[in-house]
């Protein structure tokens, strides 16, 4: 089965934050939660670069390892999802994640954190596909509709690629070959060491 991955081409990303807005708006993510963010370096100077970052859907994901209630799981296609009915909001996944992906809404009880929220690769969640509950808790399920994630789909420069790892790495390889620079995609050596 295809292994889903994100790839952000830093040579193309123009720090427009369109991916952040698309994700937030399309998935109706609450205020204060960003499933995706853009990090920029050397802003306003030569050598300015930016990278769009969210959950990397790692192989051997640290968040899955540290979760004390097994609320986080990985699908066959590599997508890492959280079950909000099981999550207790302890925050260990946030401490374990090297990419700062897990997000927490402020909860209703004593200001304690609610269930963890993070990028779903626009693959919904463990609730029934296309159900009201899934839409409300996890956002759209575009993967089930046969569409790419919102962020990558709307990326104006197609810096952000999402989908079958073989396909997107092939696109990236062609680009790198044509440009003659920018060999490795950011984060890949860390997130996908295994496969």
């Amino acid at each position, binding site marked *: 089965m295809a292994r889903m991955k994100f790839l952000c081409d830093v040579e193309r990303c123009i720090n427009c934050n369109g991916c952040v807005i698309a994700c937030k708006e399309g998935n109706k993510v609450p205020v204060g939660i960003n499933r995706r963010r853009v990090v920029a370096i050397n802003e306003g100077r030569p050598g300015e670069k930016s990278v769009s970052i969210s959950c990397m859907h790692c192989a051997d994901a640290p968040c899955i390892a540290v979760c004390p209630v097994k609320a986080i799981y990985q699908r066959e296609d590599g997508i890492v999802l959280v079950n909000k009915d099981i999550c*207790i909001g302890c925050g260990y996944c946030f401490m374990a994640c090297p990419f700062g992906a897990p997000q927490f809404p402020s909860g209703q009880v004593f200001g304690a954190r609610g269930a963890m929220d993070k990028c779903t690769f626009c693959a919904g969640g463990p609730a029934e596909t296309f159900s009201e509950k899934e839409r409300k808790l996890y956002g759209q399920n575009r993967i089930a509709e046969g569409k790419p994630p919102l962020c990558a789909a709307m990326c104006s420069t197609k810096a952000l690629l999402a989908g079958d790892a073989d396909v997107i790495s092939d696109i990236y390889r062609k680009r790198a070959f044509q440009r003659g620079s920018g060999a490795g995609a950011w984060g890949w050596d860390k997130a996908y060491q295994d496969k």
Partner: protein
Amino acid sequence: MNKSYIALWAVFLASSAIAATAGAVFCQDQLLFSPGHESVTAAFQQFSSLIVGDWQQNGRLFVEWQPALFRNIFFWTIVCVPLVFLVHYLAIGPKSFSHEKGEVFYFGVFTRLVHWVAAVFFSLLVLTGLTMVFGKLFGGGALVRSARYVHIVSALIFAIDAPVMFLIWVKDMLPKPYDIKWLFMMGGYLSKAKRPVPAGRFNAGQKMWFWLSTLGGGYMAWSGYRMFSFGAETGALRVAAIIHNFLGAALAGFFMIHLYMSLFAIKGSLKSMLTGYKPREEVEILHSRYHAD
């Protein structure tokens, strides 16, 4: 007309020359970073320091320890400590003291009240804490989430109560030379004989429990608050979580020791914390230095 154009042209040239010189002087380091020549590796390093940060320092440690180590420590603590006591109870048995020699007033009303508030909420902290540690067994969800809420509220009340308890007992809990002797003879609990053991108002075991539960409890409250509020750098949060787990296991262990001692090992020990009176014989043997102090 022509002259004014030339003058304007001259001013324009002069100002651009000044600007270019100033640019070259002030932005010399930037001229070295023209877009064509910058290193991708350097950019990736900058991204890594911004996004991943100091994860390498203790993130790996946390990820390696949390899945198994913490749970194992808690598991063996709650299995081994009661097992040791079961063996002790069967092999040596509890101590009981007669009330015929009269009684000694040991705990005032306020002390008892403060103790029982701490006792109730500390018990809740241990139970809900263990529920979270073994959250997988309960399948997570509402039960474990509620345990987390109870943990937070209990911690708040314990954090108010514990300092009062600390102030009431701190003078009697200061270490004394004979405490070492008490530790070497394990407080006389390894023999059935009723020989006086060297202890003041509180013995060395009680002192260890006191310091661990007040100072350790204080650190638990502090680290717990950090984890609850995310009020620190992520690296500091990981350290807080790691120490919170180790210290929590130690506290759970000592909590069970305290339970065994007060409920089983010394008959009527629970009563002394309810009524405030201990049998005179018990004080003479288990707290032989109390009057001498």
